[in-house]
């Protein structure tokens, strides 16, 4: 395992997940829930935290089990581990935040096929030690939550004039109903991805112009 020493450390992995390699904005993974649950900030935060929990637990177990993984059964084992924790999250949400669980509906079980979680199990947890893979899970999870919150903020403010159910727009503001529906989700995400590319390009240009 000598080649493993070249891998980035825990802290670097944690920070990487949040912005430089944000799973949603940079890698464009796991976009089904990203678009579906971001009509309200509350739903976005719940989904983000649920996915972070599943990611953390699955990375923990995959990292512990990495010696026993057979190449051809790998994906199946990942999926079963993930499905187990998603069932736990689903039951937890049903028991304690029933309203939220009803609002998110089948999108909670759909975390099982969220590509972020399988991608991190495959790319990081099955190759790294326990601590870096846990840091990676936290970073990626927070990055996912952050991206969801950005989208949900734009959509909720424009669609309802509220943020986390607090009124932020003026009283005569006409709600843009379309932002609550499917086209608004696609449009907002498209513009956020484009803007993110623009900002990154500007930062890199500034870096390269300075000696």
């Amino acid at each position, binding site marked *: 395992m000598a080649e493993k020493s070249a891998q980035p450390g825990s802290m670097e992995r944690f920070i990487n997940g949040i912005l430089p390699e944000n799973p949603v904005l940079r890698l*464009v993974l796991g976009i089904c829930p990203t678009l579906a649950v971001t009509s309200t900030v509350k739903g976005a935060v719940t989904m983000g935290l649920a996915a972070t929990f599943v990611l953390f637990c699955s990375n923990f177990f995959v990292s512990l089990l990495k010696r026993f993984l057979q190449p051809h059964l790998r994906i199946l084992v990942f999926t079963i581990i993930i499905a187990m924790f998603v069932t736990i999250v689903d039951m937890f949400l049903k028991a304690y935040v029933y309203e939220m669980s009803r609002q998110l509906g089948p999108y909670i079980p759909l975390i099982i096929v969220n590509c972020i979680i399988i991608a991190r199990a495959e790319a990081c947890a099955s190759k790294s030690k326990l601590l870096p893979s846990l840091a990676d899970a936290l970073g990626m999870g927070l990055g996912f939550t952050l991206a969801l919150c950005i989208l949900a903020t734009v959509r909720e403010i424009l669609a309802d004039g509220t943020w986390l159910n607090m009124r932020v727009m003026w009283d005569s503001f006409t709600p843009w109903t379309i932002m609550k529906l499917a086209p608004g989700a696609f449009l907002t995400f498209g513009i956020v991805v484009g803007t993110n590319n623009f900002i990154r390009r500007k930062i890199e240009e500034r870096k390269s112009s300075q000696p």
Partner: protein
Amino acid sequence: MIAELLLILLTAVLINNPVLYYFLGLCPYLGVSNKVDMAFGMGMAVTFVMTVAASLTWVINNLIIFYLNTGYGIDLGFLRYIIFIFVIAGTVQLVEMFLRKFFPSLYDRFGIFLPLITTNCVILGCCLWIDVKGYNLVAGQEGVAVSWKFLQALLFGIGNGLGFTLAICLMAGIRERLNFSDVPRDFRGVGITLIVAAILAMAFMGFSGIGG
């Protein structure tokens, strides 16, 4: 009765399109929509697997889990998601073996897409939405023919597959032409695809209201 079944099909394809209304299967939607023939192959493979998986999960959910629960009081509901994902993975394997043996030409066409389908959210989403749509047996609701409910679920599965095929082929056709247009640099790739999808979704909203 026929009209009702047709309506389920039409609703799944046009009104509640899995991609443009429920946001399911967006990864292949953005990833494999470069060429129309590739998109069509993916769509057909998804339709095939979806039809088999939807019927199998319906049978397991209603004829095993439901009867164990109502008849013997054994609640296996917590195993549902794990069973679903197992069934889907198994179906994909089976379909792959079946195609390789009996339809080698079709297998060559689907080949690369089939393993990807296991983690495609359209399939699991469809199996989960059968419950939301009320095509499952419900305790206390007697007198509804089991076969009728099954037919509804089956048609829903086929409709979702066709809806996915329609959406991904439309997008591939648009993207083939988009290659020749002058898109702002930062929006190239994913950005412009999502904005095109927004316009497509808006167009599909026009179908809402068909059939009441």
